[in-house]
């Protein structure tokens, strides 16, 4: 079986730390994810807000390229890209006429045969089975696993985990020795794509998530989405200003936490690139 990876745009830029941790972790487990050749942006929020056809055509090109190169399974570490890809596959499957129209637009064949998996599914399938023997440094911390929106919703389309109180990331974290705390904001929105255009709303929403995690005694917030990470980490100065607080809880990608547990260095998993200093390692 051929496994491909669709990193998405943020992993090449502002979420470079996430990218580094995904590839470093894969390497530590002798996996070599191959990038979908010449992949494009999925269109993100902008496309589905402004142009429905474009919002389906951009992900369809990615999926068609994957098929063309015989990729059976595509790992999509960004929860937002993952959502766009899965939603597109679902829409085209549900509406054959729309599928024909989109195939005309992209001028490519598309069958919908590649499986799309998120980072937790990838960890579950390829990392967990070999994890026990590899853990060198248990991650003995209390963590608040933050799933955000697009890893679990729309649940009828994604068909992944419990929608109000998901558990998959909590289970993964427990395997490296962490204690996942009960946390009320697991699936509340961080403000997502409003980060630049309405920083005030993002500061308000992200601050509520951080406040609850800190209040319940978490040492770190664990995420699996670059958008959640940039809002909770890069926007921390705005959040602290908005709430007039000094929140200093670090925000760590699930792949970084596992990387540290199996003996990778903070630099190898990109921790040095965070805005909020990560004192645990």
């Amino acid at each position, binding site marked *: 079986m051929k496994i491909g990876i669709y990193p998405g745009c943020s992993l090449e*830029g502002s979420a470079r730390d996430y990218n580094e941790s995904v590839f470093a972790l894969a390497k530590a487990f002798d996996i070599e994810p191959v990038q979908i050749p010449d992949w494009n942006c999925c269109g993100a929020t902008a496309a589905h807000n402004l142009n429905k056809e474009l919002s389906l055509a951009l992900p369809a090109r990615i999926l068609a390229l994957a098929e063309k190169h015989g990729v059976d399974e595509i790992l999509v570490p960004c929860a937002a890209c993952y959502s766009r890809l899965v939603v597109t596959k679902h829409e085209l499957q549900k509406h054959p006429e729309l599928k024909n129209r989109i195939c005309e637009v992209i001028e490519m064949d598309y069958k919908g045969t590649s499986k799309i998996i998120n980072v937790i599914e990838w960890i579950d399938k390829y990392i967990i089975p070999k994890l026990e023997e590899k853990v060198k440094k248990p991650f003995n911390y209390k963590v608040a696993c933050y799933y955000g929106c697009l890893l679990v919703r729309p649940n009828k389309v994604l068909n992944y985990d419990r929608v109000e109180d998901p558990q998959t990331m909590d289970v993964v974290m427990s395997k490296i020795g962490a204690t996942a705390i009960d946390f009320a904001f697991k699936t509340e929105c961080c403000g*997502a794509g409003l980060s630049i255009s309405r920083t005030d709303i993002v500061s308000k929403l992200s601050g509520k998530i951080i406040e609850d995690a800190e209040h319940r005694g978490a040492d770190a917030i664990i995420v699996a989405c670059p958008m959640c990470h940039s809002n909770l980490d890069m926007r921390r100065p705005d959040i602290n200003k908005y709430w007039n607080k000094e929140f200093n809880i670090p925000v760590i990608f699930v792949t970084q936490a596992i990387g540290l547990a199996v003996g990778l260095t903070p630099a190898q998993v990109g921790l040095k690139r965070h805005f909020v200093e990560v004192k645990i390692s």
Partner: protein
Amino acid sequence: MSHSDHHIERNSLAAKVEKEVEVKAQKCYQCGKCSAGCPVAEDMDFPPSMVLRMLQTELPANDEKILKSHSIWLCVTCEMCLTRCPMEIDIPSMMDYLRQKSRSEGKANPKAKNIIAFHKSFLSSIKHTGRLFELGLIIDYKRQSLNLFQDAGLAPKMISRGKLHFMPEKLKDMAHIAKIFKNTSK
């Protein structure tokens, strides 16, 4: 006029939503769970349940208010409303349709100017390079929104952490991306 005749003649926004995105506003019984769970409801002029109620009236004045509302642009598509709706009304898909209709009819709320400017800058970036070029996006957004000094302190911090590229990474097959944009332009 029989019920079926009435149905054929419906020209309301609710009827268009039903036809275009298969969302039936009439199914809503106003439990309010969507508005209760909506992260941006308190910033909206009409929370999601009220948008649905207004659609149900099928009055041109209400349709107009919806298309001119700030709400449709504040919706972040977090999908919480759909998840909690007992009638499984796909409000996020409906919001996408309403945003596009609002723009095509030139009715977008002036308060949503920056949100729309951001989306436009984002798509323009993809159109030119195939992938998002974050620095280009920020510069174009500043130009469009005239918020020249916003986040001025952020860029240097991103650069020092290696999180902001100076040059875009272009696709090999840019002609293909150009064609997709051309084929989907309205």
